[in-house]
């Protein structure tokens, strides 16, 4: 299946290679570089590039291209999904996944990759198992290792792989037993010029951080499970019980994981918590344009909107902008033409606004399109769909865990067309 993996940074250096079968020369990446050049932007590099003898499948994350080389037919998503899993694993191991970090931990990276695939076929991809095999580096452990000469390789054998609950580490012990669940909902929306909603939908996830001793068996139930239209589960969730009782029943992996992601049924009208008033105008003759936007709360269920950031890609003709925000800070990058305004909290009494002028290229005609405005925001303690967790019960262990549930609503891909 997967022959080799090359890690390529944004300047086109191959800084790591790993082969699971015979060695594939790194010159195969030339085809990739060609495609990269053609695509101009990193995100436009086609994920699948055929070459005379190989196929290159790549994902681009954290400014690194992960290029897998395959030789025969294999479902492309299989490889892409695996590559993303590799990135997630690195992130899990090192906190961040960047070129310097990978270079610093090259041996651990190599060992992890070795365990993840056998002859190109995935072997151990659950991070819980991998961590049992190869301990992630921590500062403390590095210090201890240098002094004692001990190693990162777990001397226990990967017993977890053999169990029926392959995602859970064995022999877990905690003094504080806690289980936290974050219900995070994201609103994807496109708002048109006039402020009416073109499309809006809610996607939610439940991220869990479970630190419980032993082998707990949890059930999580909702007040209004009918809201969940389309769900996808972590493999630990028992599908049957969900089908029959709409209850999430599972033996959780140890640590942080994504329990569930869901989509709220389209029938429910989505409450849009913010509005943007905008007036952006370019005039044909003048070299100055006017720019004004105001952000305000709409349906927020009485909560404050925080962490508002407005970004907008201005047309090429804009040379510079002189703006004054009523609150927060703004930046405009004249090279990428990216305007970004960090608003912060919205105070309904005093709506934040950004006003000013744009200086346009002299002689250039006015841009056809007004820029679209991308919005980010957060609302704490609110799940905009109204989803509520009813209760969490634990079986299988007899201590009393500490349980916590947090709700949050965020902007997903929230776009306002102007």
């Amino acid at each position, binding site marked *: 299946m997967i022959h080799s993996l090359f890690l390529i940074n944004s300047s086109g250096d191959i800084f790591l290679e790993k082969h699971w079968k015979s060695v594939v020369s790194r010159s195969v990446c030339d085809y990739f570089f060609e495609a990269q050049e053609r695509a101009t932007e990193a995100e436009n590099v086609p*994920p699948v590039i055929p070459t005379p003898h190989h196929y290159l499948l790549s994902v681009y994350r954290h400014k690194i291209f992960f290029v897998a080389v395959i030789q025969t037919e294999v479902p492309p998503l299989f490889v892409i999904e695996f590559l993303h899993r590799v990135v997630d694993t690195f992130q899990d191991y090192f906190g961040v996944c960047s070129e310097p970090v990978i270079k610093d931990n090259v041996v651990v990276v190599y060992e992890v990759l070795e365990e993840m695939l056998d002859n190109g076929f995935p072997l151990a991809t659950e991070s819980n198992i991998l961590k049992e095999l190869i301990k992630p580096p921590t500062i403390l452990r590095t210090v201890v290792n240098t002094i004692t000469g001990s190693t990162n390789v777990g001397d226990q054998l990967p017993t977890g792989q053999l169990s029926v*609950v392959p995602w859970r580490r064995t*022999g877990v012990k905690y003094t504080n037993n806690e289980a936290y669940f974050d219900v995070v909902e994201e609103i994807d929306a*496109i708002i048109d010029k006039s402020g009416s909603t073109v499309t809006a939908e809610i996607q939610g996830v439940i991220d869990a951080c479970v630190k419980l001793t032993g*082998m707990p068996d949890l059930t999580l139930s909702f007040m209004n499970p009918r809201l969940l239209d389309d769900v996808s589960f972590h493999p630990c969730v028992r599908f*049957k019980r969900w089908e029959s009782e709409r209850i999430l029943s599972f033996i959780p992996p140890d640590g942080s994981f994504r329990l569930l992601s869901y989509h709220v049924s389209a029938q429910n009208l989505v409450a849009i918590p913010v509005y943007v008033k905008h007036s952006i105008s370019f005039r044909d003759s003048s070299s100055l344009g006017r720019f004004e936007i105001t952000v305000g709360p709409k349906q927020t269920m009485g909560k404050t909107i925080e962490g508002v950031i407005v970004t907008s890609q201005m047309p090429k003709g804009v040379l510079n902008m002189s703006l004054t925000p009523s609150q927060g800070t703004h930046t405009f990058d004249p090279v990428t033409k990216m305007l970004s305004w960090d608003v912060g909290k919205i105070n309904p009494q005093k709506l934040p606004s950004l006003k000013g002028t744009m200086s346009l290229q002299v002689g250039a005609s006015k841009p056809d399109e007004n820029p679209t405005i991308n919005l980010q925001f957060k609302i704490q303690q609110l799940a905009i769909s109204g989803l509520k967790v009813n209760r969490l019960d634990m079986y299988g262990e*007899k201590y009393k865990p500490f349980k916590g549930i947090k709700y949050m609503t965020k902007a997903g891909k929230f776009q306002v067309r102007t």
Partner: protein
Amino acid sequence: MSTAPAYSEDKGGSAGPGEPEYGHDPASGGIFSSDYKRHDDLKEMLDTNKDSLKLEAMKRIVAMIARGKNASDLFPAVVKNVACKNIEVKKLVYVYLVRYAEEQQDLALLSISTFQRGLKDPNQLIRASALRVLSSIRVPIIVPIMMLAIKEAASDMSPYVRKTAAHAIPKLYSLDSDQKDQLIEVIEKLLADKTTLVAGSVVMAFEEVCPERIDLIHKNYRKLCNLLIDVEEWGQVVIISMLTRYARTQFLSPTQNESLLEENPEKAFYGSEEDEAKGPGSEEAATAALPARKPYVMDPDHRLLLRNTKPLLQSRSAAVVMAVAQLYFHLAPKAEVGVIAKALVRLLRSHSEVQYVVLQNVATMSIKRRGMFEPYLKSFYIRSTDPTQIKILKLEVLTNLANETNIPTVLREFQTYIRSMDKDFVAATIQAIGRCATNIGRVRDTCLNGLVQLLSNRDELVVAESVVVIKKLLQMQPAQHGEIIKHLAKLTDNIQVPMARASILWLIGEYCEHVPKIAPDVLRKMAKSFTAEEDIVKLQVINLAAKLYLTNSKQTKLLTQYVLSLAKYDQNYDIRDRARFTRQLIVPSEQGGALSRHAKKLFLAPKPAPILESSFKDRDHFQLGSLSHLLNAKATGYQELPDWPEEAPDPSVRNVEVPEWTKCSNREKRKEKEKPFYSDSEGESGPTESADSEPESESESESKSSSESGSGESSSDSDNEDEDEEKGGGSESEQSEEEGGKKKTKKKVPEGHREGSSSEEGSDSSSSSSESEVTSESEEEQAEPASRRKKTPPSSKSAPVAKEISLLDLEDFTPPSVQPVSPPMVVSTSLAADLEGLTLTDSSLVPSLLSPVSSIGRQELLHRVAGEGLAVDYAFSRQPFSGDPHMVSIHIYFSNNSETPIKGLHVGTPKLPAGISIQEFPEIESLPPGESTTAVMGINFCDSTQAANFQLCTQTRQFYVSIQPPVGELMAPVFMSENEFKKEQGKLTGMNEITEKLTLPDTCRNDHMVVQKVTATANLGRVPCGTSDEYRFAGRTLTSGSLVLLTLDARPAGPAQLTVNSEKMVIGTMLVKDVIQALTQ
């Protein structure tokens, strides 16, 4: 170590790949010397005795490999360390070996013996890793060794080793394809494996080695379908895609009679959904309804596949969702395909690479099944932040989805897109508008008007693209659009994009009769600028000139000649050729060529309008989700998706020999079925003796408990694992235990954590009687909550044992007087009857201190269905067995529910684990129909909770049965005074004392209750006690006579404390657990 710094410099500062690392030591100077000295420091480090130095060296070497530098000259130094004790050094050496063995074959052979030794290691994980490295060394000379190792590993006890063997198969195959036949044998064997761990890997091997041997799948088809949900994600993808191909060869097309059963599949589909919620009742109704359909009946196996894959649409892995989606697209009846749309749309939230692949597939699907994605139209709306390649794919999908009703919305969206800053995308949008216009007649004029407006766009690219599209649209009905052509003609002055100019010229030429005045003028202008035009425009100018010459030679003769002369001397030979050719055609020469008479027909023939269609059309002949589909070209190793067969091949090939009821409790079957479950847990308790020394042991299924009791040294880790093992498989094992062999046969109960699938199996097992299915179903439902309750106490060593007890006694842990046995929700008649009987026996036995009663009432030994009318129950009587004091006396209750008398009931050759012995009951001559009788037999369990397996023989038949004692039954009460008790307790401290805290429920706060519960759980005698809140019990184990002392300190405040002192630690721990369970319930 002085060399180390020098090396580390080189580590950072080296340049390209393969470049020798000169100059890292400036003093050494010359190329040759440095080349020689290179890595000397590393070699030294590897030769030392210190692990830490070796490790450091290996780490550097691996870092070199990772950066793609050549480290092959270190091979001899590294290979020496293959047998190093340090596990990390070893691992890194393996990494190195696998990378370079191919290049240094001779030296690599040195390491082989280490791996061969590893293959024999008692630890399964070491065996597996030895096989893994051995098979990864690509040295052809060791092929025979590999073959042997694979064969051996394929029949290993541990499923993990078998999985590794499956992985090794393609490796060996790529090394030496001559081994194919032998490898196929191994694959065949592994395909029959019943563990989820192996399934994915072996199918992978199958796909790489012998995808054409579809016949190997037949026998395993149903098993694979049923296991699927519990296989890990990667395996699921491979299995699903293989099964798609399989189904295409074995079943009939569900769409062949689509028109006739427009509604029926719909019903079946909803029916099956309900099934999953409601259970087997409706399931059966649905399957019963299936055959009622006349023209096409879906093969139940086909249905099984569809049903078992559907839940996987909920998987978190995009690859699995896509695999299921393609399976439905290729295999499901039209009405059912719709379910995949929602899941695919969900994937659009994922990373852009995933989106890219999914959108490609959606584009193909949306051409064939437009209706499927129509409700999700808005999910394909484009955001300005999407990468261009995603935008273009979304546009493709939107265009495919556009129809009469939604076209206004779609066009409004398109209007927004046209103003985008991304010009490639705008061009694609214009194309899309063109396609909408051709497909939907109603909006053609609107689109055309819109496009004409675009002609005044400032961006030339946009205009050019519009012209091209307009040209295509005009071809459909040119007569009405003279105005537009005129407008276009004016544009020639401004538009510079060659393709657009060419298009306009072609249009004018083609429809010159609609614009008779303008056309010659355009030609005049073009003639003027001819030399400066692009080639493609020049060709069209010639074309225009020729057409005008033919229709309007008066005005244009001279112009045409001028253009042709210009063209004659053009640099481009195509243009020269065209000019020459045209001249011959239209200007009649002296010879009066025959062709020139037909020139008008040649040039002005009516041309069919071009059809604008998606580039994704007809891509669905590739299996969706495959690489070949994505590339629209056959990739190496692509397995063609076969067409449906005309006639269905014989479905019976998939039947696994189904033993009839009589054979059901057949030991072979039983063993096979339980093997995966137990062997798993065996493996976890580390290198157990039993696992390796007696792999063929008949009592394998029970040997777990022996390893349990014998492995005092096994770490707490492994215990926990056993625990979760049990938890996962618990309900199933109970069920299987209880039913004896009812439900065996081809139905393999997936042993995974999801309780699912087994209830879905009903319909496929055509041969099993419906009654038993209902039973199994309800039992499972009942078992589930029960087992959970039972597992509430903390994990301890004894955990699994208690769970082995069949379901009925779970209910009995709560004595009826306190908390009536809650009747299970759905209980089959026979089970209900059994329960009823139970309650009676229990309530009749008034608990008293001195004649303790076993809490375990009658348990089923042989169900009446499995026993062909003979039902056998057993109970622990707690009376000393007359023959042998070491034996537990067991009452056996026979009842004959059949029509005929049963004759010659006796115990047949027992096969017992070491130490266990049986005193048989005297043969029962004859048991008339409807009669019952009892017998007493004794079993010496040897102080372990291992089950005793034996045969129950009648004159005609043999039934395999097994009795497993709860730990409390392995002892007999002893009477002693408080002082004696304390004295004995003093001797049994430390390791022999097990203490556990527990909270007593209020119902247990009185003497009577506590004593009753404890004595019901364990056969112990009460020891009189001075303090009121303390309870003491004493007993001796039957076989060895070891003391078992139990103390319960139930102070009114705070948690109670339970202490068990016993030499037999295993019994102690189990007992603590059981008692706590009894008390806290």
